């Protein structure tokens, strides 16, 4: 008797579920991000970008005009354990695609759960290339990977005629350590020399000892490269300049914030890389105006645009599958994407082991403004291999 009841129940629930599916069941996308805690400064703007993309797509009736998106966001509190818990929670809510936190470790925690469930997962802004292999077959990177960014900056530095470089690194995160190392690789390959590595701690603030050390170097470096971001970068830069060190300073996409070009004269001439630059008529300029219209405020950081990109990648993948919305099909579709137009530019995953190829924009701070230098697309041979 029990068995018959069970069978009946299963049959009923199957009927019920398939019945619902016909009435335009939305594509559920989960986002586990640090809405509070130290990652909030990246994952809060990421979420806003995603919301804008979802709103735009749903306004047209959904993906391909028929499949609306439901975005479900959960706060990881910028901690590893809650990230895993929230991922589990979202899986039981039936998400088809997962977006994981900005930090590598947190993304790995999420990937351990989503990989088992075969749910494709895209990190909001983790950029360590090894994430794609550590996280497994279903883990994708979205932001410009560190080796690509380091490669672009190394090539640029050599092209400027700089001979001697110094890197400021922190072992606290892969981003702040490996990206400058990729820069050094590319710079050396282009004929430059690395004359020093200076270490700092995240949140250190006081760079007097390091700056004194740099000042004492003979000969002085032509260029100093770092992927430090706020609050370390402004503190370092101010102390460097006030000590009279005049070397050029290069940075990475962590500097893409009005608080950097708002630093005043001290930031003049700093060059940094980003995923794109909103030149007139570009997709990023379009995004910026859409963003302003939707939220009633200016987009303050490129994390808005990169968050937006993720939804566009998912959209493109679902379109490519035809009508399939299972995890495996979407995963394979993302893995095959080529030259997809997103807010920051074009993105390719095909043949790259889930590490995207993007164009990289170089920006220069001038008179308190971010100005456009160039857009660089590296050939695969020019990108330092991930380690």
């Amino acid at each position: 008797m029990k068995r018959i009841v069970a069978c009946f129940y299963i049959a009923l629930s199957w009927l019920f579920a398939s019945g619902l599916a016909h009435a335009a069941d939305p594509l559920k996308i989960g986002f586990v991000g640090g809405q509070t805690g130290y990652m909030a400064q990246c994952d809060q703007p990421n979420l806003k970008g995603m919301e804008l993309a979802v709103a735009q797509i749903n306004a047209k009736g959904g993906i391909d005009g028929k499949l609306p998106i439901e975005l479900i966001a959960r706060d990881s509190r910028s901690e590893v354990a809650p990230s895993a818990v929230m991922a589990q929670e979202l899986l039981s809510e039936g998400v088809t695609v997962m977006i994981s936190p900005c930090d590598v470790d947190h993304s790995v925690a999420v990937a351990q759960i989503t990989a088992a469930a075969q749910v494709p997962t895209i990190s909001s802004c983790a950029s360590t290339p090894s994430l794609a292999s550590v996280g497994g077959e279903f883990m994708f990177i979205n932001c410009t990977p560190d080796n690509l960014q380091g490669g672009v900056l190394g090539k640029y530095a050599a092209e400027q005629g700089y001979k001697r470089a110094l890197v400021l690194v922190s072992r606290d995160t892969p981003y702040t350590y490996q990206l400058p190392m990729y820069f050094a690789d590319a710079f050396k390959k282009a004929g430059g020399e690395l004359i020093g590595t200076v270490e700092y701690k995240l949140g250190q603030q006081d760079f007097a000892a390091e700056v004194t050390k740099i000042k004492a170097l003979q000969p002085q470096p032509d260029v100093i490269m770092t992927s430090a971001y706020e609050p370390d970068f402004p503190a370092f830069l101010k102390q460097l300049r006030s000590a009279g060190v005049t070397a050029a300073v290069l940075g990475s996409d962590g500097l893409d914030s009005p608080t950097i070009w708002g630093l005043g004269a001290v930031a003049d001439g700093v060059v940094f890389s980003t995923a794109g630059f909103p030149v007139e008529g570009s997709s990023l300029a379009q995004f910026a105006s859409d963003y302003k219209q939707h939220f009633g405020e200016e987009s303050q950081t490129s994390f808005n645009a990169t968050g937006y990109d993720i939804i566009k990648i998912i959209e493109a993948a679902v379109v490519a599958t035809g009508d399939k919305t299972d995890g495996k099909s979407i995963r394979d579709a993302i893995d095959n994407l080529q030259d997809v137009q997103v807010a920051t530019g074009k993105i390719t995953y095909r043949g790259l082991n889930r590490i995207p190829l993007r164009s990289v924009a170089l920006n220069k701070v001038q008179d308190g403004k971010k100005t456009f230098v160039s857009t660089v697309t590296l050939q695969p041979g020019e990108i330092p291999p991930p380690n």
Partner: protein
Amino acid sequence: MDYFAQQAVNALALGGTYALLALGLAVVFSILGLINFAHGELMTITGYGLVFSLAAGVPYPGALICGVALAVFCAVAMERVAFRPVRRASATTMLLTSFAVSSILHTAFQNFISARPKPVPVPEWLGGAFTLAGIQIGAIPSLSILVTVVALATLVWFFQSAQTGLAMRAASEDFAVTRLMGINANRVIAASFAISGFLAAVAGILWLFQRGSVDPMMGFVPVLKAFIAAVLGGLGSLQGAVLGGLILGATEVMLRAYLPEALLGFRDAIALALIIGLLIVFPNGLMGRPIQAR
């Protein structure tokens, strides 16, 4: 030699800032037996006070005063709202309360102000430097040293001569007997929070001048350093807090300056090991009294 002298100035500037922060923790601890981990948030509040009053058109010196006043006000309010109800509870309860206050403030800053840093305009002249006896000294380190000296001198005067200062020292020795003098306990405690808020604000401004922005997490690292400095100096000892701050600053700077590159990654571990070594020799901190049951 020049290199050493230069690093010594750096050590003094950083140590002075740590000393101010540690002193802020110690002033409250000496009276209440509470480590206020929300102390760092008072620095952040100073930053937001400065940013928003500048945005409202207040001239720079006025905005600085607004920032300091806001931190003092919030420190006193913190005591009134969060700590007074648990004053008779165990030290653990008070400690957890301070963690709670700290994380509530973090979240409030993130959700009601911004998770992104807000730029703090810093006067141009603070980017400069001058040369003294062959050593180049930046304007910010000089300011840090100067402000620290002035703040410490003012506090020495306050605790030696002002009646409220005496009452606070008395309360840190024997709270019950201080009340027997007819001294209002709430007022003494509020005064200790006000002073700690003031010290956090001063240290916060020096910190802000260096970093040029304020964000919700700004107070996190400094309060940890201040805690280490206060423990090193001897919890509850005001002179100890200053000494602990200076030693911590000097240790950090000198390790950063002289450790070989291969060991730089371990410098925090080495610094903390040195401090643990000192604490083994001085279990109550350098100037601490033996811990008694309160």
